[in-house]
């Protein structure tokens, strides 16, 4: 286990390096640069800016400088946000994005597990059908479509909730719902399938036939085993909630990392894009690692060699 863990951690480094390299090359393949604007700057100013930020150095040197700094936790500076350090921007943005993601994750797990469990325990009943239809519709509604619908109902007609912004609990309700809808459907479907499969197993029959109470059978024997496939999708789902919230953030004007990234791409802010991409790849790697470790906790049959 310790050896496996160490190997996995060591493996994160090369992957991040490759991600950085690909992003760096892509960014420099873009025509135009961070100093482009409607009013062209004079060439001397551009040359001075390039010199100040090291953009006049050869590409390989720029890349090595970036990697060297990144290893010390410095992801460079943003060229468009008054030269603020990228790590600063990410830190302030990420707390927002993570809060929103965590909210959506909680909603998705609670609602998804409930829907899936109810459907599985009352298979082929009206409740099961209803649950299937709800999750199929939820799986087919793009985030922004749901955002539009929510705004029309709760902001335009009922005047209950603000259309955007971030800071008060009221402002978090619609974004969290919009972000959680797809995962709810996903979790509900996996939970139903997984529960049904487990309930058909012989050890459930054994547990029932030795006279255990139904509650104990369902909770201790069925649910615990049904959790494993759910956990498999929960990890990547948590990642996609944190990295994929840029549509919700753009739609509801939430100052998170997703919106920051989109703005960075529009402004050709190399520094911001490089930093944000590395940061995201890092988050993905760490969460995936954590999920793999969690498997071993939930399922003692899994041993990492």
């Amino acid at each position, binding site marked *: 286990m310790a050896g496996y863990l160490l190997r996995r951690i060591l493996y994160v480094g*090369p*992957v*991040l390096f*490759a*991600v950085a390299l*690909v*992003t760096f090359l*892509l*960014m420099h*393949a*873009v025509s135009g640069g961070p100093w482009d604007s409607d009013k062209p700057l004079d060439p001397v100013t551009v040359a001075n800016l390039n010199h100040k930020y090291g953009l006049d150095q050869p590409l390989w040197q720029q890349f090595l400088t970036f990697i060297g700094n990144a290893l010390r936790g410095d992801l460079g500076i943003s060229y468009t946000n008054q030269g603020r350090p990228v790590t600063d921007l990410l830190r302030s943005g990420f707390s927002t994005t993570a809060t929103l993601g965590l909210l959506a994750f909680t909603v998705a797990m609670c609602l998804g597990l409930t829907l899936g469990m109810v459907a599985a325990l009352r298979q082929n009943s009206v409740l099961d059908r209803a649950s299937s239809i709800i999750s*199929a*519709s939820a*799986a*087919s*509604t*793009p*985030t*922004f*479509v749901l955002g*539009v*619908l929510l*705004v*029309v109902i709760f902001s*335009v007609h009922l005047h209950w909730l603000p259309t955007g912004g971030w800071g008060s609990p009221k402002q978090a309700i619609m974004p969290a719902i919009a972000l959680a809808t797809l995962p709810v459907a996903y979790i509900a479907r996996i939970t139903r*399938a997984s529960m049904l*499969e487990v309930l058909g197993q012989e050890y459930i029959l054994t547990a029932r036939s030795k006279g255990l109470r139904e509650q104990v059978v369902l909770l201790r024997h069925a649910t615990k085993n049904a959790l494993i496939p759910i956990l498999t999708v929960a990890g990547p789902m948590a*990642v*996609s909630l944190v*990295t*994929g919230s*840029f*549509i919700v953030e*753009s*739609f509801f004007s939430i100052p998170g990392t*997703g919106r920051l*990234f*989109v703005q960075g*791409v*529009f402004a*050709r802010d190399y520094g911001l*894009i490089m930093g*944000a*991409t590395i940061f*995201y*790849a890092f988050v*993905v*790697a760490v969460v995936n690692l954590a999920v793999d470790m969690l498997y071993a906790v939930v399922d003692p049959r899994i041993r990492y060699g």
Partner: protein
Amino acid sequence: MRGGPLIPAVETEDLAPVTDRQSPRTDLWRRLLRNNRLAAAGAFVILLFAVAALIGPFFVPHHYAHQDYDVIYQGPSSAHWLGTDALGRDILSRLLQGARVSLSVGVVTQVIVLAVGLTVGTVAALGGRLLDNLLMRLTDVAYAFPDLLFIILLRAVFGGSLLMVIFAIAFVQWTTVARLVRGQLLSLKEHDFALAARSLGASDVRIALRHLLPNCLGPVIVAVAFGVPQAIFAEASLSFIGIGVTPPLPSWGSMVQDGYQAIFAYPHVVLAPTIAIAVVMLSFTFLSDGLRDALDPRIRH
């Protein structure tokens, strides 16, 4: 004991000649379309949209980019069946053209995903350890990029032609199929039937193409079927935040974006593309679910 034939009467069905037995393929279609009404309905709706997208734009009286400032924000009428948008463009024409964009994004990305995923997965599984390691590390790197953010990045670098949007989406999706194919092949090639083919003198290529790949197609078809709505979803989302296909080419996502600006006064502009996206996505979800149920032997009811 009453006298009678020693051989018990056999139901005629059991005596049907072997040639009459359903091939796996007809069996699949029967399970998919006749036993699963939702999947059949989904397939029908998709077919309807595909036909409309294919021939519709030839029959509409207005070009999708034609602007007419005398008729902005009109409701449905005999001249404009679904009304007009902020620039007086016919919404029905744009919806049909948008269907072309959405469906071609969905289908073409999956063709690329299938081609690349099958090739990489097969070569990795059967091409020896060195190639396997190399390709799988490549897959890991592609997988490490957060998908929608990477699509945005590619889109920013290579511009907004429809083809580039398709390539960008395909680029983040192929890893799933590649891993799936590799995993399936690695386990299949240890089976007896592969050994049998080899001992009969079949070449590596023949074993791979004739014996191994057909056996792993089930899960691959399911993955691709789920990939279509995902790609449509990705394109609509990109177009919605303004970095998808380039105007005046309409996409359902950009149509929702256009209409959203006047949602309080003219909700009908947003309604048509919103419903279109939801219906097509729902149809693909039902069809993919049906395919999975029909192709996955473990969940046969």
